[in-house]
């Protein structure tokens, strides 16, 4: 045996024998050549058993060489990363690849599960539905999970680079086989932008292995010449190793391009493509025949055998029998004989074949048997022979390979993703899509065409239509014909449990019989009940045979039975490729405060609140969160703190109708707001639910500044715009979102005014001149300055805004403080607890999708309004008036903690399961008050002041008393100082 394995031929194929490539298979060193796929290299090295079947652990060999192969699932580690499960035929061979079988334990060729007969009584049709039922399913699941499945992730991070790309072209050509290439050639000179996507590493498709002469050149040379021409044409590109994985509405496609270098798949590109027109030239795959023991290793599709010989220079066996229902098998027999394989016999299911083939077989001395049926196979780890029933009696043949040809299955997946209906063509014995989506055309094998001349003609016609030009002349073609296909029949004289239909999922003819017996006679039911076609190969080789058997068993035509729905993706794609670079800090757009650098210098611990915001600050006196939060709160209550509130929304509403416009949005009447004043209110949606809250400042006549909650600024600005455009288009008002133009630093605490004074503003900040809920504009050393006196903490508080470019300067100036001391930097947690002590709502925490203004104690405000505002009418609908609405109340702990999210149990209940009547919306230990407090939405809460309730959270219960939500300074004396 030579280094490269016993099955490599001395010549032939498109591999480069001067460039050997080393790899390992289950730890064993092997060698292939440049141009090999992993599958061809493994076969060349004599690997016959590549895995085990899903349920019965039957040995499985290579059946095909591409995405249609149900068997050859392997895991691959190349220089760039690990792929837990891929079909060997889809992976180009690369230096140093470590390849392992993914099924079978301890190995694919020696599997304990198969020896023990594990699963035999287990996994029949409907197994999952009959077995995996509560309460027993949890008992079975671990066993089933261990015994089945393909490949294991190795726990390592995806290391292969992935890049996303968006692209728009005039024409997408799917496939660079003869049909796709001819279509692209027809588009040269049209001026259209064209993308040709080919799944394989090389263009040419079937020309890589079929005998053909086009335009006087060997087929493959013709293909290479066109590929070169396309590459040289501006606006046209051909992408190889590129899977068109999915088609979506309006001709959007997902393409995955593998970028391959000498050491494997270096990277992948995820392309979202829009194409005005599509030429589908995705071809067809061959399907197997049904006969006894047809799952044995050594049984391969006839076309795959031809490809092994002609494309990869591999002779997969020494003695070959061909079993065929069309001319494909004959072509394989001739190719095999030519490659030095002894063709033992051609078994044709038809009563006759093309005279030209028959004559050639005779000339080559190949025995031919018509109307032959295989009734038994002799095989252990390797195929040794078979028994055939013929019209003239039973015959036996010795062989180590069997090529089968059962007809063609067009790859119509992409058209079907778009809703095109597959229609059974009885003459061709295949599903095609006669009606294509808008802007689509098809040519070649996907249309059911098996003649090369016809395929090229179709392609050039399609190109002509796309470019609105005369069709180019079809080139002269010399190629063998494939002839007619015989009907798919139930094999006679063999037990149904010996006939495999889906080789990946171990679905046998007997399983289809069980399904039919149990009345699962719709294709979609058959699929789910038997798992037929549900494997990673998506049933490319099994669906049609399964449907044919279903039709046979139910006395229907295949056209009546139909086919299951095709769904994206066409073939598995990597999750890492879908994710692209979206990981870590790039997982989604991050927003940074304008003074971010200062917070980092100050030792902030950041949290993402839509913006990256300081949660708390590390300080010499505060190395943990609880300590820091308590000290930050104490600073605000007893001295002064500063807090970065720059993320707060700033939406300018201007124009002659601005006041009336704003009045329609807020529960409070903003039309009465005077220049220099600020008002807090809530905004409802039309269903009467609180949509946002915040303050509105009147900066001057016809000039307002709304302050939506952080992270809601764009949404509120868009909300204003929608109503302006669609409901009040004649309203003379304009909306401008200027949120990020201004930083806002809040100074809060008894000494807040002293700190504001540090800026030496050019307006009077004395308590008499600048009152609570007022706004002032001026300048700070020539810089525009805006200060609002509002309070979120319950203390005296100023919100100081300057253009964001000065954010760092402003924050640092304020932080220096005055002669009496420096303010403490305050993080989000302390800020939220301060407002909780004051009983102010935090939108989205203390309100939910049902909370209206009444429920947060604003009924009086609503009652005061005479005119309409958005959502007002909904407040008098029966559901809004129901006394089962949850109302916002305060909670004070009687025993234990008050945790946000805790359920409020119904009176008399001590532990779930029981009725609950609300939940804690905010909760904390209040350092100011010295005990736990909280806010809760509780049914009829307003009427239950003083009542004790039981709270339940994560297995713990505690007791609390319902109180007013305002725990701190209910008279508002401190914030008015």
């Amino acid at each position: 045996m030579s280094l490269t394995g016993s099955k490599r031929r001395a010549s032939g194929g498109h591999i480069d024998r001067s460039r050997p490539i080393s790899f390992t298979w289950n730890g064993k060193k092997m060698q292939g050549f440049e141009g090999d796929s992993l599958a061809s290299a493994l076969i060349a090295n004599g690997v016959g058993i590549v895995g085990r079947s899903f349920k019965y652990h039957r040995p499985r060999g290579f059946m095909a060489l591409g995405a249609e192969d149900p068997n050859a699932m392997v895991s691959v580690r190349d220089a760039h990363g690990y792929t837990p499960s891929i079909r060997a035929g889809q992976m180009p061979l690369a230096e140093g690849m470590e390849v392992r079988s993914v099924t079978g334990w301890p190995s694919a060729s020696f599997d304990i599960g198969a020896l023990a007969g594990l699963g035999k009584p287990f996994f029949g049709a409907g197994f999952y539905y009959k077995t995996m039922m509560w309460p027993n399913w949890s008992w079975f699941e671990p066993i089933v999970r261990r015994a089945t499945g393909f490949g294991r992730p190795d726990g390592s991070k995806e290391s292969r680079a992935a890049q996303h790309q968006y692209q728009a072209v005039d024409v997408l050509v799917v496939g660079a086989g003869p049909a796709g290439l001819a279509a692209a050639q027809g588009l040269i000179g049209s001026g259209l932008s064209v993308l040709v996507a080919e799944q394989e590493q090389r263009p040419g498709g079937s020309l890589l292995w079929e005998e053909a002469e086009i335009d006087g050149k060997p087929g493959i040379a013709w293909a290479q010449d066109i590929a070169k021409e396309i590459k040289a044409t501006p606006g046209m590109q051909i992408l190889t190793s590129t899977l068109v994985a999915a088609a979506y509405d309006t001709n959007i496609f997902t393409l995955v391009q593998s970028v391959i270098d000498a050491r494997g798949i270096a990277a992948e590109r995820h392309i979202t493509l829009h194409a005005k027109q599509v030429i589908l030239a995705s071809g067809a795959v061959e399907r197997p025949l049904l006969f006894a023991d047809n799952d044995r290793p050594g049984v391969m599709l006839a076309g795959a055998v031809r490809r092994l010989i002609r494309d990869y220079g591999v002779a997969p066996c020494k003695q070959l029998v061909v079993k065929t229902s069309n001319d494909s098998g004959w072509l394989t027999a001739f190719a095999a004989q030519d490659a030095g394989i002894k063709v033992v016999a051609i078994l044709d299911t038809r009563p006759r074949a093309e005279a030209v083939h028959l004559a050639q077989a005779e000339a080559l001395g190949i025995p031919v048997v018509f109307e032959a049926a295989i009734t038994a196979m002799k095989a252990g780890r390797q195929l040794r022979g078979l028994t055939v029933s013929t019209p003239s009696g039973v015959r036996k043949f010795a062989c180590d390979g069997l090529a089968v040809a059962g007809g063609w299955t067009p790859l119509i997946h992409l058209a079907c993703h778009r809703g095109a209906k597959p229609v059974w063509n009885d003459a061709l014995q295949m599903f095609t899509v006669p009606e294509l989506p808008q802007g689509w055309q098809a040519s070649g094998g996907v249309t059911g065409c098996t003649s090369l001349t016809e395929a090229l003609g179709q392609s050039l016609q399609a190109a002509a239509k796309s470019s609105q030009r005369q069709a180019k002349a079809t080139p002269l073609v010399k190629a063998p014909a494939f002839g007619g296909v015989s009907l798919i029949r139930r094999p006679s004289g063999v037990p149904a449990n010996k006939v495999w239909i889906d080789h990946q999922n171990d679905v046998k003819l007997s399983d289809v019989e069980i399904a039919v017996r149990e009345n699962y006679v719709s294709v979609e039911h058959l699929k789910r009940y038997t798992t037929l076609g549900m494997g990673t190969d998506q049933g490319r080789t099994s669906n049609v045979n399964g449907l044919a058997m279903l039709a046979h068993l139910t006395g229907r035509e295949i056209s009546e039975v139909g086919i299951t729905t095709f769904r994206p993706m066409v073939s598995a794609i990597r999750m890492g490729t879908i994710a692209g670079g979206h990981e870590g800090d790039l997982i989604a757009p991050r927003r940074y405060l304008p003074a971010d650098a200062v917070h980092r210098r100050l030792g902030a611990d950041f949290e993402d609140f839509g913006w990256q915001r300081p949660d708390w600050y590390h300080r010499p006196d505060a190395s943990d969160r609880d300590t820091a939060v308590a000290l930050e709160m104490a600073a605000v209550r007893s001295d002064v703190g500063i807090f970065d509130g720059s993320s707060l929304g700033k939406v300018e509403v201007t124009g002659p109708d601005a006041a009336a416009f704003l009045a329609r949005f807020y529960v409070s009447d903003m039309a009465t707001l005077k220049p220099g004043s600020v008002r807090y209110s809530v905004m409802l949606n039309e269903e009467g639910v609180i949509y946002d809250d915040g303050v509105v400042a009147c900066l001057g006549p016809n000039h307002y500044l709304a302050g939506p909650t952080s992270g809601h600024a764009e949404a509120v600005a868009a909300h204003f715009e929608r109503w302006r455009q669609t409901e009040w288009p004649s309203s003379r008002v304009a909306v401008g979102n200027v949120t990020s133009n201004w930083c806002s630093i809040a100074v809060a605490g008894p000494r807040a005014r002293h700190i504001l004074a540090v800026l030496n503003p050019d307006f009077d900040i004395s308590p008499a001149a600048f009152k609570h809920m007022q706004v002032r504009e001026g300048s700070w050393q020539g810089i525009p300055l805006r200060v609002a006196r509002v309070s979120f903490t319950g203390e005296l508080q100023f919100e100081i805004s300057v253009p964001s470019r000065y954010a760092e300067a402003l924050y640092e100036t304020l932080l220096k403080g005055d002669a009496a001391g420096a303010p403490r930097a305050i993080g989000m947690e302390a800020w939220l607890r301060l407002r909780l002590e004051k009983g102010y709502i935090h939108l989205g925490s203390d309100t939910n999708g049902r909370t209206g203004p009444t429920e947060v104690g604003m009924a009086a405000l609503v009652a005061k309004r005479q005119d309409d505002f958005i959502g007002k009418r909904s407040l008098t609908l029966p559901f809004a008036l129901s006394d089962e609405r949850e109302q916002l109340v305060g909670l004070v702990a009687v025993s234990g903690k008050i945790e946000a999210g805790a359920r409020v149990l119904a009176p008399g209940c001590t532990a779930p399961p029981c009725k609950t009547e609300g939940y804690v919306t905010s909760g904390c230990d209040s350092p100011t008050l010295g005990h736990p407090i909280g806010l809760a939405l509780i049914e009829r809460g307003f009427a239950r002041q003083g009542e004790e309730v039981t709270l339940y959270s994560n297995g713990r219960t505690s007791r609390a008393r319902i109180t007013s939500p305002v725990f701190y300074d209910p008279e508002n004396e401190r914030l008015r100082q």
Partner: protein
Amino acid sequence: MSILAKSAFGNLHGSSHALASVHRHDIHDRADLAAVLVVATDDDAAAELASIGLTVPTGAGPMVAQDGLQAIWLSPRSWVIQCAPEAEMALVARINAAFDDRRITASLFGDHLAWIEISGADPQALLRRGGFVSLDAGGIAPGSAKRTLVAEVNVILCHIEPGRLLAGVERSRARYFVDWLKQAAKEPSPAF
């Protein structure tokens, strides 16, 4: 005491700074650019602005340059006018003084947007790693502007001239946007 003005990238406002050199492209923080937002309450605002000597485009696409200003159409009633930072406050004052009923309002916008310049072989191709940029043939024409999404971020893209593109990005997202650009520009394999 002088108050330091800093861009979204921590650079001194009023200057242009190199942020990164990526495969075949350079990225700059154009902190020497500022802007004014102009919003109007009715549809004849372009004519009213013309009456005070400000020409703005009346539809999407081509930008209008005038006296060191560059006007970009945002919507039928709003524009961004790019200007030098030192011209920003005066421009706002000039417009607001002319329309004291605020039927047209100008606002400081130089700090709402960060202007990121991408120059090199094909800036639009680089941005297509985060969105279509344009579904029309030829992409954004030189001298034109377009608002769209790139990497889930709203951007105002100004095609200054072939090989030079300005992306106006809301300030808080500017750093993310450039981080994304650096990642997207990586050429993970020579085969790419």
